[in-house]
């Protein structure tokens, strides 16, 4: 597991994740500007599977889901934060991006190696010898996240309904 921590502070808003002036661009191009106003090395440096760790109220602001979408496009697998903006939290799960409430992020250093067990609600930092708790995602939402988000989840459900209908006919 080579996941690495990208650490941010409190109140990171959706405007800095998906800046308004780039909203016309396809998501891959928009993502290159993700968080550049607060951390210019982020978009270029993130690797597939990395974990973003933030303080309070991560994702406050706009309902634009290009914010979690940009993080996902860059390869971020999960966001851990002390708390989330409500719309961002819903958007992240709907897109299949794990968003985990983790009350104690103080001991997680930027750049640390990290492993996340969302089902058990556990975060492991091997270098620091730390195991931290996080709130698990409610079951019905975790099922959606495991399907890859709401769109594939709906596809699966519609296909199942079709199958059931064919059976009864």
């Amino acid at each position, binding site marked *: 597991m080579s996941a690495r921590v990208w650490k941010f502070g409190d109140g990171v*808003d959706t405007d800095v994740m998906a800046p308004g002036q780039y909203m*016309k661009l396809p998501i891959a191009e928009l993502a290159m500007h993700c968080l550049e106003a607060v951390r210019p090395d982020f978009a270029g440096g993130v690797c597939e599977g990395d974990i973003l760790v933030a303080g309070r*109220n991560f994702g406050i602001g706009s309902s*634009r889901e290009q914010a979690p979408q940009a993080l996902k496009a860059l390869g971020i697998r999960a966001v851990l934060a002390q*708390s989330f903006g409500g719309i961002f939290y819903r958007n992240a799960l*709907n897109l299949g991006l794990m968003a985990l409430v983790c009350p104690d992020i103080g001991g997680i250093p930027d750049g640390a190696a990290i492993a996340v067990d969302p089902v058990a609600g556990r975060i492991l930092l091997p270098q620091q010898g730390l195991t931290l708790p996080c709130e698990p995602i*409610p079951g019905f939402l975790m099922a959606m996240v495991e399907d890859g988000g709401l*769109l594939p989840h*709906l596809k699966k459900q519609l296909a199942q309904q079709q199958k059931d209908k064919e059976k009864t006919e």
Partner: protein
Amino acid sequence: MHTLAQKIIARAAGRETVQPGEIVTCRVDLAMSHDSSGPRRVAPMLDSLGAKVWDPDRYVIVTDHYVPAEDKDSQQILRFTRDWVRDAGIRHFHDEEGICHVVLPERGHVRPGMLIVGGDSHSSTGGAFGAYMFGIGATEMLGVLVTGEIWLKVPGTILIEWMGRFPDGVSAKDAMLFLCGKLGMDGGQYQAVEFAGEAVAALEMQERMTLANMAAELGAQAGLVAPDATTRAWLHAAGAADGPDADWHTDPGAPLLAHHAFHASALAPQVAAPHSPANAGPVEGASGQEIDTAYIGACTGAKLADLRMAARILRGRRVAAGKRLLVAPASLRDQQAAQSEGTLHALADAGAQILPIGCGACAGYGQFRFADGERVISSTARNFKGRMGADSSQVWLASPYTVAASAVAGRITDPRPLLEESR
């Protein structure tokens, strides 16, 4: 005994009662999208599912973000929106008629007791009319469009009571900036914030809309004002049909998550320093700060009520030499009303540039973006870093009174002495 939020959600969930913390599935009475989060985002997903909008009469589309179209991409987005609206049989389409949050109630779509979702974070504005309305993203909107339903966790209610009356020169925007400073941008805990008290009861509807709108800045899911005679009169004038039939209010003694009470008469005009609405404090703290641009715009800062506040300051005065005042009215109807009553003329006479209606600079999409280091005082809702222009631009938030007064002085200024002089 239940809160207003609980009553609306129970009705939408088809239940007698619901309790805070429960997760319920609700029937959606109405869905709203704009040109940025709407058709261009949901149509491809609907196509991939082979699905259609569950009820085209219940999906309202408004164009406001890429308006006016400044480039080819914006023109294409608007063109796509128009074509899709026609093909999908959407009946309620408001094309370049103003900002969605202002247009929706203005055209009678929002009624007390409704459960409404909108594809924009300031969708909480509908709560001013006693509807439980909240913002969602495009993928979640897809779910609503396919099923007509949405899940939510029944919120607790944070009651915010304003006792007494707001003094002259102090507006709903000041009340919300004060609350952002006091409670923080997560003070709303993604619960329902309900505004009440004598000062709220005395507010006109567009001022109540500013309260509900900026509940988003408190991190609440919804911002609510219980409907009363003022609400009913406004809706009647807007030609709205009756809403779901019930007495929509929080029962006395209903369990609350928190209850805050403030003296409206003690509130001074507020200013929020860059880069957060939570950096708010009394205007004295920012007084004298030089500005380059004063901006009156957005759903929370350029409605007719807001334009009238600015005009009260600007009548008989001029924007300071070397400074600019930009005004982007929030809706076509508000612009026309401001035109016919002389309000717009007073702004233009003072040297304001009247920009096209729409979201304007607020969302940072269009041609009106602020330059490196530009200092702006704005009646909009958010001053996040880089939102309205360059990362190094600086935006202070204030009421239309304070923005107009600052345009006249060329620096951040308490509007109350100017109002006193005008009397």
